[in-house]
């Protein structure tokens, strides 16, 4: 019976990484932040690499995109947001459980990106019913 339970646990472990809407995933061990990783997945590099290097990729890409006009790279900030925005509040910010804000609060590092960039996915902004209602006012 004990064996059976441990096998069941082992089977369940990988499932813990696939988040459904609003479900929290532990990052960096039991004392690390618990984050709503949105759709999540693994589109650029493995999570460990991304945790310590994501800003280098984004910094390089921002120069290429803004100054040279290179589009369609997988390192674009909008791509990060499209997948990692919470399905609850459609943002990577908002609380210590949101993807960007949560980890940055934990690491005590200020995020500059969203002083200018939108923290919401493109699809959500395109649908943007709230913009229409604002205009109707």
């Amino acid at each position: 019976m004990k064996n059976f339970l441990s096998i069941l646990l082992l089977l369940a472990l990988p499932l813990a990484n696939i988040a459904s809407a609003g479900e929290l995933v532990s990052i960096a061990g039991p004392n690390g932040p618990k984050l709503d990783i949105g759709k999540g997945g693994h589109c650029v590099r493995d999570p460990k690499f991304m945790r310590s290097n994501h800003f280098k990729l984004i910094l390089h890409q921002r120069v290429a995109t803004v100054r040279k006009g290179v589009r369609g790279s997988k390192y674009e900030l909008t791509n990060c947001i499209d997948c990692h925005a919470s399905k609850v509040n459609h943002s990577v910010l908002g609380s210590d459980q949101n993807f960007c804000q949560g980890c940055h609060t934990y690491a005590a590092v200020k995020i500059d990106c969203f002083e200018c960039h939108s923290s919401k996915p493109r699809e959500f902004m395109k649908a943007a019913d709230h913009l229409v209602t604002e205009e109707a006012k």
Partner: protein
Amino acid sequence: MSDVNEDRRQFLTRGPALAAGVAIAPGMLLIDLAHGAEPRPAGEPASSEVRWGMLIDTNKCESGCDDCVTACRKENDWPEPKSATDVQWIRKVELKQESTGRQVNLPVMCQHCEHPPCVDVCPTAASFKRADGIVLVDKHRCIGCRYCMMACPYKARSFVHEPVIDHESEMPRGQGTVESCTFCVNRVDRGEQPACVEACAKEGHRALLFGNLNDPNSEIHQRIRSVTSVHLRADLGLNPGISFVGV
């Protein structure tokens, strides 16, 4: 020596394919970019083969219509200006000739000069001209000194005094930086028209024509060849990308 350098291995196996691609690419590039309606392929930088420009026919620009301004505001998510210091990417101007009473309507925005004074004066190289002639502000570098605003003879640039809250647009905007018309650079890169041009056409006025000035087959190139058009303040020799008919 057990570690295999995957990048090197892939480069070696793809080498011949890459070489063949380069041989074809220049010819194909010229044709594709010349028409300008195609989205630029992913990973490719803006090309100096292209010079984006606009022809504004003031005879077709309706008095009192500000659809281009509204479309720009919606696309780039900037608030309705309430005072002279508020953000304004594009504005409608009405000119009246005193002696005859003739009135002319035209939108004025960044003229995307070939020799932009804003770029000359920028101390941090935040103001820059992209290879395809679009003049932009790199807000990552902008320190908000506003020299460019003083240098611009068209009053095209604005400073963002207020914090930008709940910004919902593909075009990033932020407090403490200078901004202006970008020709909707994100849309143009996708092969679309700027929001103002689309709005003007939707209303049936078609006063704004956008396209590649360098392409002899483009509509804008052909119209500029066949009608009289002027640059605003042509005496300054800045060679703007925007020309006007009927001013």
